[in-house]
């Protein structure tokens, strides 16, 4: 306490000296020798650049992990009609994530989040209590698959960064069209059918509903690259192995997927 008081006095004296020096120099008096000997301030090792406001959110999409299983509802209210149950895991055992479409508070002030659902029919949305979701992730990427032209195009902040030819579903098992998202990434699995890497999506086959895991559509490599491009799969999007590996370096989980 006494030391603090002494330090305080010293700082006060120094400040008073500085004021005197400044005033003195203005009035033509000479600065005191002690103050003349003060070194220049130490140059900071860094200084932040200009503070910039947020950029455009035009290409930003948000997602959130499901931390607790819950019923998605048609409206942001506990009594609203249920849409489907949303679990915490995907069929592959990874954390289930949902695409965030909006948010609203109910009459009691509780937050609800509108989310895209990985359920049939494809393209459904529902409302989940904010409390069952984890933190938000965001991406500025967007994958577009054109099933007519057999192409996959990845955009990052609106700029094309990847394009590849793909195989899509045959006529009897068509690749579903609509707006989906990338849910997970699987690697180092046994067997060459899916190539070296596979992305899981929220899209589901409307024809192979009894497929193990529920008939989810994947984006993956192949052991039959000679068939690409073309309508060759059970609904999945197939790429040459080098293409899926290149895509994996650019596309984060949560990326929106448009199949048109």
């Amino acid at each position: 306490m006494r030391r603090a008081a002494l330090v305080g006095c010293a700082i006060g004296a120094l400040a008073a000296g500085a004021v005197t020096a400044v005033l003195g120099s203005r009035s033509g008096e000479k600065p005191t020798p002690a103050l003349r000997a003060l070194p220049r301030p130490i140059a900071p090792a860094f200084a932040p650049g200009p503070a910039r406001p947020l950029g455009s959110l035009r290409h930003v999409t948000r997602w959130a992990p499901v931390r607790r299983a819950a019923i998605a509802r048609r409206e942001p209210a506990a009594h609203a009609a249920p849409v489907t149950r949303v679990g915490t895991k995907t069929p592959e055992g990874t954390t289930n994530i949902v695409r965030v479409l909006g948010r609203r508070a109910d009459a009691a002030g509780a937050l609800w989040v509108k989310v895209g659902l990985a359920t049939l029919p494809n393209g459904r949305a529902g409302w989940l209590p904010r409390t069952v979701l984890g933190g938000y992730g965001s991406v500025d990427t967007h994958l577009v698959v054109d099933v007519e032209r057999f192409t996959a195009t990845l955009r990052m902040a609106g700029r094309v960064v990847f394009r590849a030819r793909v195989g899509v579903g045959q006529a009897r098992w068509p690749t579903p069209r609509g707006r989906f998202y990338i849910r997970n990434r699987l690697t180092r699995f046994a067997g060459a059918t899916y190539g070296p890497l596979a992305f899981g999506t929220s899209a589901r086959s409307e024809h192979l509903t009894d497929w193990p895991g529920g008939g989810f559509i994947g984006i993956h490599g192949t052991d039959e690259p000679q068939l690409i491009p073309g309508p060759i799969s059970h609904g999945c999007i197939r790429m040459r192995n080098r293409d899926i590996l290149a895509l994996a370096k650019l596309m984060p989980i949560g990326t929106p997927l448009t199949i048109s």
Partner: protein
Amino acid sequence: MTLTLELLDRDEALLESIAVLQGDTRAELLRKAAVGGAAMLATLAAPAPASAAVSDVDILNFGLRFERLQATFYTEADEFGTVRKMPAAKQRWAEVLGAHERSHVRIIKRILGRKAGKRPFFDFHGVTETDDGFTRTAVAMEDLTVALLAGVTPRMHDRRLTAALFGLLTTEARHAAWARHIVNTTPSARSFDEPRSLDGVRATVARTRFIAAPPRMTRQKGRPRFTG
């Protein structure tokens, strides 16, 4: 259920730090404040190195982690439209602080280069989505930042880095005062700010649970079950 600091901060670490910095009255006020969230900082709860062994890189990395927390907090509130719905003066406050925190992240990341730690996964438990939760959390966070910088800046070995951290400290002190002005409390309640240790701040942050375990979205050796 409305979340409050009291609910979130079960061990009262955050309230304790606020009480130290701002007085018991302010802490009591905040206790009942709707905040929202307490599941985040498990990652930061990792054992801390002994103070004597803390290097400048350790301190800068902790600073980066904390600045990322703040920058994400303000950015989320801005992106979610929470800031847009505020009165003009408050909106400006939130936007300016967000821009400052993002610039702090950029520069510390650049200084650390390859030694910069990975970005943590944040979960603000909804506080960035309501005006009330955002504002009250911002006040507590800015005060905590000042205490952190006051505690670690004298521990830096490199004098030029120390000088740079002083620049951040005074800026954060202005943020804290502005934040407190926004909620109509005395911008400077005490004549002296007590510094907080790195470990103390680390523990406080851990208890807020704003830093969460990242979701597991990649799996190895799990056979795909897609339609093929």
